[in-house]
């Protein structure tokens, strides 16, 4: 079986960090001033304003702590109406209900994304969370996207 395609390769990689090799890593950045951020950008540091080479890529481990979550009960997909003869989307749309979490990564930044395989018990703020890749493709092509789940 071939390696699945990563949906947002600019944001994360299947490979973990040296500290957390078993979970996907996130592609963040570190400024000369010490500020660590996600996702990587070189427009300018959000703390000190340094730009360009002062901002360097850094792999962030896929481990963090849940600081908030919300079960979403209503969601309207804003995808443009498919034109006749257009190919169906390659990725499954979000369908309510789903759960969004704010996760403070152990490397610093807070990210918000979908949570999977969770129940109310595991959703208390303070819960340790880890990143995982889940299949989101609709067709033959294997496509994976990043989610967070409770650490075991």
């Amino acid at each position, binding site marked *: 079986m071939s390696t699945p395609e990563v949906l947002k390769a600019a*944001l994360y990689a299947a490979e973990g960090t040296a500290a957390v090799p078993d979970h996907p890593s996130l592609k963040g950045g570190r400024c000369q001033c010490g500020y660590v951020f996600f996702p990587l*950008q070189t427009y300018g540091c959000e703390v000190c304003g340094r730009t360009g080479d002062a901002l360097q890529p850094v792999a962030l481990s896929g481990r963090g702590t849940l*600081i*908030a979550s*919300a*079960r*979403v*009960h209503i*969601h309207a997909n804003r995808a443009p109406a498919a034109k006749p003869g257009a190919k169906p989307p390659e990725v499954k749309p979000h369908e309510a209900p789903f759960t969004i979490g704010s996760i403070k990564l152990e490397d610093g930044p807070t990210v918000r994304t979908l949570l999977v395989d969770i129940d109310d018990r595991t959703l208390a703020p303070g819960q340790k969370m880890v990143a995982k890749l889940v299949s989101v493709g609709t067709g033959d092509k294997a496509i994976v996207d990043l989610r967070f789940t409770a650490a075991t």
Partner: protein
Amino acid sequence: MAKILKDLRPVYVVGVGWHRYQPLSDTPYVMLGLPAIRQALADAAIAWPDVESSYIGTGLLGMAAGRAMLKHLGATGRPLVHIENASASGSAAFRHACIEVAAGIADVSLAVGVDKPGIVQRAFTKTGIGNLADDAIVPFTHFALLTNEYADKHGVKPQDVALVAVKNHRNGALNPNAHRQQARSLEEILGGKPVSGTLTALQCCPVGEGAAAVIVASEDAIKRLGIGPAMLPGRRRRRGCHRRVRRCYQAPGH
């Protein structure tokens, strides 16, 4: 050194007007904004040519909405500026009208907020910086996450947060311009349709349309145009005076 507004000359609210807030209808935005402005002019008892500048706050109408609306008040050739500042577009328009009058650039200025629901592409999607799941995180979920974080930090329960909506609906029931004008019990708020996190439908802003207009003026204009001068400092109230004349930005403690 920079000045603050109260270091400049006093600014007074001399007229206010509304088109009530309501669900999306077929009414063009022009006929939301114009009635609000005409009501504010009538409230101040001045005429449109007395207004020297206009600030139009709108988030979703699109480019240059004010020109196509204000022209129906008659051509005066006065400057107009559009202000898009997300949810704060109307209050930012008011602030700039006050600054212009306080600075002495104009004696009478109009601030109007007018909007209708519409789909605009939010600028953060055009920054070239990706995001993990912003297509799944609409504003109500942003606020649901903040609510959850706040509740956890301060030991607040969902019913405590819902009491804010009980208070807001009670106020709305007293306001003929409010989108929602029905008082609601805590049970109704909590038992409503779940939206995101602990937030239910009656705890989330309705998306609708409406308009509000404010005319601000200097003391010079109030005297020159005979706008209810009784409320100015050092004057006795006269019968039939205009009670809406209020100084903006009182010094702290006043």
